[in-house]
């Protein structure tokens, strides 16, 4: 079937999934809430009801875009790495170190340096799982999950005992980063920080990389057919390792941008599962960078809506989890897409 028609059907399938998932969430609210209508309106409308909320949606979307991109890249190469959370901490940690302890540079030099350190931190940490996979053939699902804990616990140790800012008390953090490189608000009145710009740039770069370059071609071919790639002379191990490291770099960016835009420095346990959200985003986006952008905004929207709903009604924000789970399951259902293809698609190609 033609590529163009196939894309339209993909969108249709995703739209169906989104609607069904939202309906599930609504059903739960209707059943368990004493004031369902107000809870629902909170969930649906509050995120765009004022500039503060809109800004919050954008801010929440930023790290999701990065981790979503990270997982999309690695999933497209056929690797089930679940290590974005750990790579996010590793990269954020290294970047923050560069932001705190390097002095005397102009922000124009300092900021890029910090970003590069974050990418390097994430990439190098990811390389551990990558090497374990390529040289020892160790299952990457389990190794990356385990390494997440290693990263979170190690960085926690360091921020609590070595790099702790003495004035931070019970909630350990590093001293504040050079204020000149913080990502401030873009527009007055809108609390969205400049990280959204970097995130959009990342979407463009990843898109170009995946679909218009040699590296992306090799990556996608390896993901689609390892046998074919090997037969064609592609060094599959090198490609897999590269893709895992690119993914780690993106996750590292997620960490540092969150630090520079929201927290001001590295705080112990600053990520509440952003790496795992990235897996959901990549699945929703069917691993496509543009899809990641849309999915991140949608996901952030639901999260903000759920949060305001919790504040204003008797519904806990975990209702969002139900919507998210249904989204993942419905979008990943091959049956829905096959069904659509059969009904609306395709004359058999001779």
């Amino acid at each position, binding site marked *: 079937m033609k590529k163009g028609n196939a894309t339209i059907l993909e969108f249709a399938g995703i739209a169906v999934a989104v609607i069904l998932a939202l309906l599930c969430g609504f059903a739960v609210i209707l059943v368990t809430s004493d004031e369902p209508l107000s809870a629902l309106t909170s969930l649906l409308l509050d995120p765009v009801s004022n500039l503060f909320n809109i800004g919050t949606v954008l801010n929440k979307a930023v790290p999701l875009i990065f981790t979503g991109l990270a997982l999309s890249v690695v999933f497209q190469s056929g690797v089930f790495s679940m290590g974005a959370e750990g790579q996010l901490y590793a990269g954020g940690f290294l970047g923050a170190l560069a932001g705190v302890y390097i002095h005397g540079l102009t922000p124009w030099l300092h900021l890029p340096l910090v970003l590069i350190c974050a990418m390097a931190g994430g990439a190098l940490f990811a390389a551990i799982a990558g090497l374990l996979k390529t040289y020892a053939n160790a299952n990457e*699902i*389990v190794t990356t999950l385990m390494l997440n804990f290693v990263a979170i616990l190690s960085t926690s140790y360091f921020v609590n005992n070595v790099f702790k800012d003495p004035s931070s008390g019970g909630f350990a953090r590093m001293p504040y980063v050079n204020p000149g490189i913080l990502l401030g608000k873009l527009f007055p009145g809108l609390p969205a920080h400049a990280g959204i710009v970097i995130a959009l740039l990342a979407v463009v770069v990843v898109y170009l990389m995946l679909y218009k370059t040699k590296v992306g071609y090799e990556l996608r071919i390896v993901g689609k057919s390892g046998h074919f790639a090997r037969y064609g002379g592609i060094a599959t191990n090198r490609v897999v390792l590269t893709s895992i490291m690119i993914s780690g770099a993106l996750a590292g960016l997620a960490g540092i941008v969150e630090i520079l835009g929201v927290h001001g420095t590295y705080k112990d346990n600053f990520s509440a599962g952003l790496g795992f959200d990235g897996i959901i985003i990549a699945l929703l986006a069917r691993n496509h960078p543009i899809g990641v952008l849309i999915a991140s905004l949608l996901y952030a929207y639901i999260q903000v809506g759920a949060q305001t709903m919790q504040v204003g009604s008797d519904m806990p924000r975990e209702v969002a989890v139900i919507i998210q789970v249904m989204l993942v*399951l419905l979008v990943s259902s091959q049956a829905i897409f096959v069904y659509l293809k059969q009904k609306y698609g395709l004359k058999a190609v001779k």
Partner: protein
Amino acid sequence: MWQALWSQIMDLTLVVVLLRFMTPILLSALGGLISEIAGVINIGLEGLMLISAFASIAVGSATGSWVLGTLAGVAASVIICYGMGFFSIKLKVDIIIAGFAVNIFGSGFTIFMMSRIYGVAGNYSPIDLKNIPTINIPFIQQIPVLGKLLNGHSLMVWLALISVIFCMLMIYRTPYGVHLRSVGEAPEAAKSLGIPVNRIQYSALAWSGVLAGLAGAYLSMGMTSMFVKDMTAGTGFLALAVVLLGNRNPVGILFGSVIFGLASAVTTLVQTTPGSPVPSQFIQMIPYVVTIIALVFFAVRKKRRRMALAQG
């Protein structure tokens, strides 16, 4: 500190703690094994344990009966597994993604319910909870070494060990077990012989639900007497690692669970022993690092064996 640790090994406290930590890993790993044999590997063990832990303590504290509580936990877990089966077998969602969704759901839904039913956010500790009983055997209690080894364990510990035998019988001595294996390895062959592939896969998932359900009930009504959000803390993933290492065999699962249970036990003992020179974060890392090392070790061994074959 080392002295305190050594004395705990000598008076077999280590064994007791080991059995306690090993139980949830062993139970869920056996469940994972059955599902893996049938070709529908269940990676949602974390989520299932959380749901079961919450369901059992909710019903257990409301009815005052640990039996009803445990049954409720198992039932909840099995229902979710049927849901998993529906999405993966009928709607063709990749089984790994379905398992991942169960994990997210388990975490979020239990927090949701804890908030809606009990109005608390972090943990639910009912007073007067009747836990799963510990077994005290009157005569054996007096015997010095054997007494400590065999006595005073939770019923669930014994259930877990019995489950190993149960699984061995089921997988190798019943036609159902042969069908499970054939469905996992050669579904087309099974189908052509009239074996109901889908029904068997649903049932394999259901078994993993039963076992994970028992594990979850033990977490909230045996190991502890409360429900804490995300209390599984990676146990389900350790169980997954055991399945991958276990050589597709319940006895292998037992060995793997002992190793990982040991790692967790040592971690706890060191943490609770005063005067420990090692920072707590690195101690907490022990089970995870052990898992990676074990995984790599076995994977390299497999690879070496394959390469040796290829050299002729």
